[in-house]
């Protein structure tokens, strides 16, 4: 369980990234924070693993204030996935995945062996193990980033726009795989994105943020789509836009779902 209690963050220089944020994320849940660039998402994530300390308020994990923990140990116990994977360009794929176990004192040979298993788990060919990150596609690098975050078997995963740099088809695929991986692993995940479709695709619960990390609305994707709390949320989720207003048309005895521009998006299952 991760708990933000009245957290505020003002950076030196006076920019207030987070005004007053409170949220409890139960264990094994996926919380998706969605909001436009600069609204404070990264700051919120980094307060969990102490890369940023709040100006006031507390962040706690299973009831323990993270400020009482050693930052280096804390970070090793939490998986962090960054945009474009954040891989170390001078380390092979296997060594990247093995990073945290090796820092924790595991032998390099054993850690690399475990890394191969993790690569398979995230759908990568183990033949890639001895390549360098620059030799992989964006989607592959992203998978390596996930494998690396899982290497120390953390309870918590922080994901900062992890699929933002890959093309839409690969992104869909990664999202689908992430859902099935999560179904299997049951981690506590804080996932940050500026893409509302991604938020709806991944979140059990979605939090729409506005500037200063103010929660504009919190709910399941269906709740938010059905009843946007205000103008801001409505426009953010695109409520009323052609692609969100679907209608049914009967074609050849089947019910075809079309969007506001009469473009078919699917058929109703029977």
């Amino acid at each position: 369980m991760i708990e933000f209690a009245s957290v505020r963050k003002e950076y030196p220089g006076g920019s207030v990234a987070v005004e007053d944020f409170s949220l409890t994320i139960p264990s094994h849940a996926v919380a998706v924070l969605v909001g436009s660039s600069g609204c404070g998402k990264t700051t919120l994530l980094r307060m969990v693993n102490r890369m940023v300390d709040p100006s006031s308020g507390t962040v706690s994990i299973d009831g323990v204030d993270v400020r009482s923990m050693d930052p280096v140990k804390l970070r090793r116990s939490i998986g962090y996935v960054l945009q474009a994977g954040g891989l170390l360009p001078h380390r092979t794929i296997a060594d990247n995945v093995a990073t945290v176990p090796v820092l924790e004192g595991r032998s390099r040979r054993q850690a690399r062996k475990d890394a191969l298993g993790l690569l398979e788990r995230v759908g990568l060919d183990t033949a890639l193990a001895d390549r360098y990150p620059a030799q992989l596609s964006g989607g592959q690098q992203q998978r390596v980033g996930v494998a690396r975050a899982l290497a120390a078997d953390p309870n918590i995963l922080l994901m900062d726009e992890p699929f933002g740099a890959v093309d839409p088809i690969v992104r869909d695929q990664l999202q689908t795989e992430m859902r099935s991986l999560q179904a299997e692993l049951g981690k506590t995940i804080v996932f940050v994105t500026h893409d509302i479709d991604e938020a709806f695709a991944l979140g059990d619960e979605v939090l729409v943020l506005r500037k200063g990390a103010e929660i504009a609305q919190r709910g399941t994707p269906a709740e938010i789509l059905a009843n946007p709390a205000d103008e801001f949320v409505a426009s953010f989720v695109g409520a009323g836009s052609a692609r969100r207003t679907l209608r049914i048309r009967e074609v050849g005895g089947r019910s075809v779902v079309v969007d506001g521009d009469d473009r078919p998006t699917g058929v109703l299952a029977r």
Partner: protein
Amino acid sequence: MNWLSQNLHIVGALLVDHLVLSIVPIALAILVSVPLGWLAARYRRARTPLLTGTGLLYAIPSLPLFIIVAPLIGVPVRSPVTIVVALTLYGVALLVRGAADAFGSVPRETMLAADAMGHAAWARFWRVELPLAGPVLLSSLRVVVVSTVSLVTVGAVVGASSLGTLFTDGFQRGIEASILTGLVLTVVVAFALDAIVVLAGRLAMPWRRAVAT
């Protein structure tokens, strides 16, 4: 050639002296410059004093520097220690800026990623910053290697023996073969040490070639 075959043992001894007088200051300059360059890259307030200070060192001509350094450390001008100290200073003068640029070239996101994974400061330096600074560091190291090897010969003027002794002796006694041998060997030493640095860089940074191909 005749001269060379008769003086082979002297030339050999001078070659060894020259290698020692080159390699020791190069190694010392690396040891001093890497931490200073790191400080200059990571702490804005340290940057200007460090870069200006070490840059000014290079403006001192080598002969006067030998003569100033000797009494300061209390050894004779012709002592190898004088040469080593003076050439270390030159090496530092060149290398601190290169090291600062090298550490400045390490992508911020990569350092953040290293932090996020739980590298302590020391581990981050050795495992992430230093290797990624490697390529830029290596190119200024190559300049230092060649310049040090050539500056060692100046020491011969104040009496510190090296391949430069072959020039000074050759001039005084009018032996062209001696001058020529000194010249050729100095260039060969410079090329050889440079080649070793490049090769060591390739071995230490295998990712660069893998990525380039």
